[in-house]
């Protein structure tokens, strides 16, 4: 009797420890899930290796660019053009302007988000300022490039893609490196 109680209890304890681990495992699982389904308009944060496929000139996709500053972020941050018309498969390029108007160095992280969600997995960035954090000294300005390809396999019902960047102030988290930059 006592051993079977001990056995049951240990097994259940094992289950609860495993479920604690499962809670954490949900984090990477969720990321994979998001990337596959385009949930939240998350796009890959890895540079896309171009495969050099054909350009589909029969279709034109309007790509809109939007920018938002998160709480307390004082930078000026704007796309240089509001929208581009591209053919699927074509490499397109644009630039974003950023300026740190404050007196001291700051670090920023841009977070992309895209609608419609079902276009997210067909929007490939070959180069993006959002892949890394951006450090600007007080008063410094920068033009930040974005290069992307809209996949030829993008669903037929997608005619407009809206790409929004939110700029976060991450200076306090990245402070050792800013100290270096200063």
């Amino acid at each position: 009797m006592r051993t079977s109680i001990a056995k049951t209890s240990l097994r259940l304890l094992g289950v609860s420890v495993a479920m604690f681990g499962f809670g954490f495992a949900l984090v990477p699982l969720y990321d994979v899930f998001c990337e596959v389904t385009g949930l939240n308009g998350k796009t890959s944060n890895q540079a896309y290796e171009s495969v050099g496929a054909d350009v589909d000139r029969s279709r034109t996709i309007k790509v809109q660019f939007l920018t938002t500053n998160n709480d307390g972020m004082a930078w000026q941050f704007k796309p240089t053009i509001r929208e581009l018309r591209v053919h699927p498969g074509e490499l397109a390029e644009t630039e974003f302007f950023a300026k740190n108007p404050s007196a001291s160095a700051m670090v920023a992280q841009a977070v992309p988000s895209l609608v419609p969600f079902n276009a997210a997995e067909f929007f490939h960035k070959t180069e993006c300022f959002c892949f890394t954090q951006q450090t600007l000294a007080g008063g410094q300005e920068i033009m930040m490039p974005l290069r992307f390809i809209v996949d030829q396999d993008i669903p037929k019902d997608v005619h407009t893609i809206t790409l929004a960047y939110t700029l976060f102030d991450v200076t306090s988290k990245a402070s050792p490196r800013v100290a270096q930059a200063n």
Partner: protein
Amino acid sequence: MSTTTADHHHGPAKGFSRWLYTTNHKDIGSMYLWFSFAMFLVGGTFALVIRAELFQPGLQIVQPEFFNQMTTMHGLIMVFGAVMPAFVGLANWLIPMMIGAPDMALPRMNNWSFWILPFAFTMMLSTLFMEGGAPNFGWTFYAPLSTTYAPPSVTFFIFAVHIMGASSIMGSINIIATIMNLRAPGMTYMKMPLFVWTWFITAYLLIAVMPVLAGVVTMMLMDIHFGTSFFSAAGGGDPVLFQHVFWFFGHPEVYIMILPAFGIVSAIIPTFSRKRLFGYDSMVYATSSIAFLSFIVWAHHMFTVGMPIAGELFFMYATMLIAVPTGVKVFNWVTTMFRGSLTFETPMLFAIAFVILFTIGGLSGLMLAIAPADFQYHDTYFVVAHFHYVLVPGAIFSIFAAVYYWLPKWCGNMYDETLGKMHFWLSFVGINLTFFPMHWVGLAGMPRRIPDYALQFADFNMVASMGAFLFGASQIFFLFIIVKTIRNGKPATDDVWGDSAEGLEWTIPSPAPYHTFTTPPVVH
């Protein structure tokens, strides 16, 4: 069935040390029940602060900052402090007696799982006096309001949640170990009373999801203090991830608070209908299906978060499916009453009210499951009405019913039937006055968790507040009835409800001796 009463054992120790060191399931059950009642009054007081502020439009009694602390603490205390410990208390008292076991399988751990609770809740309540105030982000504590924008007391909130989670997990391990190993000879699984069955399933749910809750608050702790970015978009995390992990815990949690209630009602209705429970087997299967479905419907709490349409459709269909096993249960209860020989003692009144009002809550739940319509219902008072209908006349009424039903067995005295019925009618009128108008203001456009509202909602809010104070006052009356019963109620008979009540607990004397079934009974 045979009756075995131990008389060669020593009785309980005297004084406070009896309660501090006790490993007796009956003592621990009583402590859980008294503790949960105290928390019920505390959480209820918070609710009355909310209702007092909402009595009229404009800010009168509290400021928005404190109002948010009240909604948060009300939810946390009621869920983790009142409903869950009350069910654990009932499990402690009843499961060993129902399956013919001498005690719980792990009595020392049982003592621990109770005694860490008062510490958790002292810590939780102490946040009210801290600088920056208590947690103010709702009991669902969505990031980043609960991380980047939280008051400093959030750390204490996290530790309190850890402790109560540990308590629940220990309690559940104990319950499963007891049910699996200590059943009397002949007590097969399909002969167990439904209360034991529903708790067996509930305990598995708890073991599966309480660790996930512990995980999510640990991630919050790391985001707040150790610079990780689980829930912050700036560092590559995602605030929506918080909601997914939280509701992965949260939806099964909802069933944790209702499945034991199904068990209680399934014991009481047959007794007072003088007829066996209809469809015992389908009750067991329905409970298991509800438990299983509870793991795949969580995102119906997040229909407006911006999910791909495939996700919306999946969670809508899965949620609608829950109506099927829940319907089976309601039909079984009604059929049990059909062509019975009904009497209406207090436990039966609460059980009947449970079936009616829980069904109303279930039907509004079905409406909420319809994703497109949920875009209008979500986060309005319609939702508040819905979940209070399943939790107050659901979980709370079932606990009242259980207390009236088994109290004579516990303390050996019969409660006063007239007073019990008064308590029922006051509570019944009170909760309907409180929560029914909330359906209307919700549909008409009143969002939840707001300290002040537009003028067209004024009339129904006033009615709801009056109902809330009536319901609150009736619970003080309930306390009076219980104390009166324990002190000088009429002695109860051993079988209490006559021969229509089934179960081993009615074969032992009233009050139940300190030690029961030291030699297991034989179940035929």
